[in-house]
């Protein structure tokens, strides 16, 4: 088996199977969480649910990350906040505005938009990789985090790190032959897709549900989320 065959396998059947596992797994997880049961909310509606949701997203996703010092999370642990924030931001930029990724979304959803210039995407990509390494070092050295870290956390780190590093090497054409690193990138992406429904990276979807629900509850009680 040569790399050309490995590439066509990983671009075709492997990615296909992992996408199937991903879709089935995520819908399963979502249904399980939703059907865990809802406590009956007896509070009367004093404000607006929608307003609560909007404010919750604005604060949590758009405003607070850029003025972090007002939040407790930052004051308690600056490193995790900055490295974690930069990691999420770079991941978003690379996935949403990298040329190759836009072509993937175009083929899957039929939608396409303008990519960011390659050097900008490369910059964000390296920022993401560096912050992920910093987070790993932090986890390895922090006395409390060391106690909290079990095997699934290491798997999380590896399956996220591998696609990022292989993608960066591929986009910059470093060291490897293109079809080799392309295959490795796709294999690691498939691993990630399979792992997401099994582990805590599923927060990429659940996050939005919880933020919506908490925002709505706060809005109903007319308090600032």
């Amino acid at each position, binding site marked *: 088996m*040569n*790399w*050309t*065959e490995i*590439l*066509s396998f990983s*671009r*075709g*059947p492997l*990615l*296909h199977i992992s*996408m*199937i596992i991903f*879709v*089935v*797994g*995520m*819908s*399963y*997880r*979502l*249904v*399980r969480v939703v*059907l*865990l049961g809802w406590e009956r909310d007896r509070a009367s509606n004093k404000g607006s649910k929608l307003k609560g949701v909007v404010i919750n997203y604005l604060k949590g996703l758009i405003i607070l990350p850029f003025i972090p010092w007002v939040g407790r999370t930052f004051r308690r642990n600056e490193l995790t906040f900055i490295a974690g924030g930069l990691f999420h931001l770079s991941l978003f930029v690379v996935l949403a505005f990298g*040329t*190759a*990724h836009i*072509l*993937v979304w*175009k*083929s*899957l959803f039929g939608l396409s938009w303008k*990519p*960011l*210039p*390659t*050097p*900008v*995407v490369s910059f964000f990509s390296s920022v993401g990789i560096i912050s992920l390494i910093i987070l790993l070092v932090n986890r390895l050295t922090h006395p409390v985090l060391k106690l909290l870290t079990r095997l699934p956390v290491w798997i999380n780190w590896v399956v996220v790190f591998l696609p990022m590093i292989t993608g960066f090497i591929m986009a910059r054409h470093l060291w490897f032959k*293109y*079809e080799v690193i*392309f295959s490795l990138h796709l294999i690691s992406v498939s691993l990630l897709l399979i792992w997401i429904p099994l582990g805590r990276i599923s927060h990429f979807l659940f996050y939005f549900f919880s933020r919506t629900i908490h925002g709505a509850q706060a809005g109903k009680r007319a308090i600032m989320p």
Partner: protein
Amino acid sequence: MKEKTIYEHLREKGLSRRDFMKLCGTIAGMLGLEFSPPVKALGKVLNPSPEEVVAQALKTKPRVPIIWLEFQDCAGCTEAISRSSSPLLSRLVLEDIAIEYHETLMAAAGFQAEKAREECLKRYYGKYVLVVEGSPTTADDGIYCTVGGKSNLEILKESAAGAAAIIATGNCACFGGIPAARPNPTGAVGVADLIKDRPVVNIPGCPAIPEVTTGTILHFLVMGQLPALDSLKRPLPFYGHTVHDHCLRRPFYEAGKFVGSFDDEGARKGYCLYKLGCKGPTTYNACAGLKWERGLSYPVQSGHPCLGCSEPHFWDGGGFYEGQSAPTMKLDKGSTATLIGAGTALGAALAGVNAVKKTRARKAVVKPEQPVSPAEEKKED
């Protein structure tokens, strides 16, 4: 009688010594002899110049007979080579080296042609180079491609038996090409899949670049051996780099300037064609270096993305105009809905089981001091 050398043959045809040396220089340049590992391997010294290695070979070696077979193909590779705009090289191969049997180009036809092939095979046994164009078919004993009543499998095996080397030219002969595209009704395969006991070189392309085919034949002639090959049996001097590596639009790729559609501003400015589905990054071929029509142009230069025609199964490797990063197998709306349904059903079923368990547990907690008799427990079930 001593066989005439190529040089003698060329001189007889009226080629001047000056032109002969020019030819040698061209060949040496094209083969990249100065950097070619086989030269060192053969212990040849390139002083004072690489063309002397070529001249020496052409002066001392007899002609190499070539037998050119065609199976499932469009004869495009023959077209390319016979209309090549490097007339010196293609004349050298077509007339002087020389092609003894070529199903498309020779004047003979019918039984006469078949007889010519059989005679050639006998006369030059063990010496000739067999060039195969088009894919052999394996389904139903190869009956889907027959010449003179013989199946192509039979002809291939017969002709390969006495070949000094086999050159598969064009993607069809190398990897099955278009005839092997899904669902491959004729069971088309590459020559190297069938012939294991002879050295086989693949010169893929659609068509193969004529200079690459002639260059490989000349390499065999000059060095007496086939060039170094990659894992797909392609000669490294020509297939050592991707189209992307030497692409003239590469700076635009690095800068992230892409053509969005065939007639936009970027297309007029000559930006990178990656977004239009260019397969250059994974395609190993000499297009960007040798180019076509005496270095005039090649697909990417003239504004069309690379199709990856020198790679196995390029016909089935996703849409030509779809980005290379896109997955080749896709979930359509229907199957996605089915999968979501399956996940939801599974989740709901397990949640149902859980709910039943919970209810039972709660019941058990509510009345702990009234033990339930076995008969009553059964009733509840």
